[in-house]
């Protein structure tokens, strides 16, 4: 279903790029969002991986209409949820679901808290696919539940009106910058009523500024004053979710 912010973004671009056709606007909205998530790593998803002793390869299913862009982290929680207990992973109320909740399991397990997780090593063999293959390095030779933190991106098919469904909070927070991105792409098209090299340069700068801001904010998990604040050096290398992009 088309969200309010998607419709708003569409209208913002319509007004800036007079004469642009709706279909072309939506095509460029798709391209802009694709670049946005590719460059910002802002769309994260935690997925439980049920590790078995007899294989190191696991097909990761996100359960959403997305492609997996990167593996941002692979961890074993200190008190993992029992293997096979929940078929539907318990997610926090976000649209779409992103982070696992601590609710329901042992409250000391702190599934969500990366500081109580132990880092594991694995790679994605075919990032960019909807259900990529995760290959882990060391098999624990026992049934365990690990948590893979994935970076996602939009993909086809779009909804019935040609829109994608990125996370609500990204649209709400960075709507203007996303509009800049769509404007930039449209204005770069040659021979159109809305073609404008200076306009494209301006909107391109604003779009890049938005990407930089988003990337920094996500990496520092929206902490106040994040532009001038850092973890002490010793924590930077494996500070888990708080520095998830820095691994």
């Amino acid at each position, binding site marked *: 279903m088309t969200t309010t912010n998607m419709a708003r973004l569409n209208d913002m671009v319509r007004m800036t790029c007079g004469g642009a*056709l709706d279909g072309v606007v939506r095509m460029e909205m798709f391209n802009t969002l694709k670049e946005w998530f590719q460059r910002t790593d802002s769309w994260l998803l935690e997925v439980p991986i049920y590790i078995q002793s007899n294989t190191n390869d696991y097909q990761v299913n996100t359960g959403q209409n997305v492609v997996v862009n990167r593996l941002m982290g692979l961890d074993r929680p200190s008190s993992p949820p029992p293997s096979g207990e929940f078929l539907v992973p318990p997610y926090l109320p976000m649209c779409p679901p992103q982070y696992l909740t601590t609710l329901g399991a042992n409250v000391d397990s702190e599934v969500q808290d990366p500081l109580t997780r132990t880092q594991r090593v694995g790679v994605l063999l075919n990032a960019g696919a909807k259900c990529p293959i995760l290959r882990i390095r060391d098999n624990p030779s026992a049934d365990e539940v690990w948590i893979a933190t994935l970076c996602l991106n939009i993909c086809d098919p779009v909804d019935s009106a040609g829109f994608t469904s990125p996370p609500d909070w990204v649209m709400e927070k960075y709507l203007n910058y996303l509009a800049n991105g769509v404007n930039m792409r449209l204005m770069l098209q040659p*021979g159109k009523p809305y073609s404008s090299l200076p306009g494209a340069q301006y909107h391109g700068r604003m779009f890049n500024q938005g990407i930089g801001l988003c990337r920094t904010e996500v990496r520092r998990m929206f902490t106040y004053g994040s532009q001038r604040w850092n973890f002490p050096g010793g924590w930077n290398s494996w500070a888990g979710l708080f520095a998830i992009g820095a691994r």
Partner: protein
Amino acid sequence: MAQTYRTVTAYLAIARLNLQDAVSPYRYPDANLVLALNIGLGEMGRIRPDMYLDLKYQRPLRKGDIDDGFPPTYSTADIALNSDGTYDPAKGTLVPIPVKYASAMDWFINGWMQFLDVTDTQDQRAQGFLGKFQSHLTTLSAA
């Protein structure tokens, strides 16, 4: 769907209005007007290839869809007539030109038809109309 289209019949009716040829017997045959429409569609696709992709990206893209949306060649069979032989603009085959660019096609049909009457004055008029067609597709200021 956020788009409305005109029919072949509507294009012809508007063209005849502009050409002052709205009363039968016509000066310009239907077949010539439809021919101008078909040529205009090709020109429009050359100048604005996005024109026919409008609807394609307002729907989920189907796997393996390489359709460029270019419309078929129209004929006089695509015109809808009332019982008294006049045009029925609401009926007939739809032409997939977004309505905000439909008037550009009017300029092209009129211009192309003016070329058929080969006198110096009409040549200039035709060139002016075809210039309107081009500028309407590529700039915001053209009316």
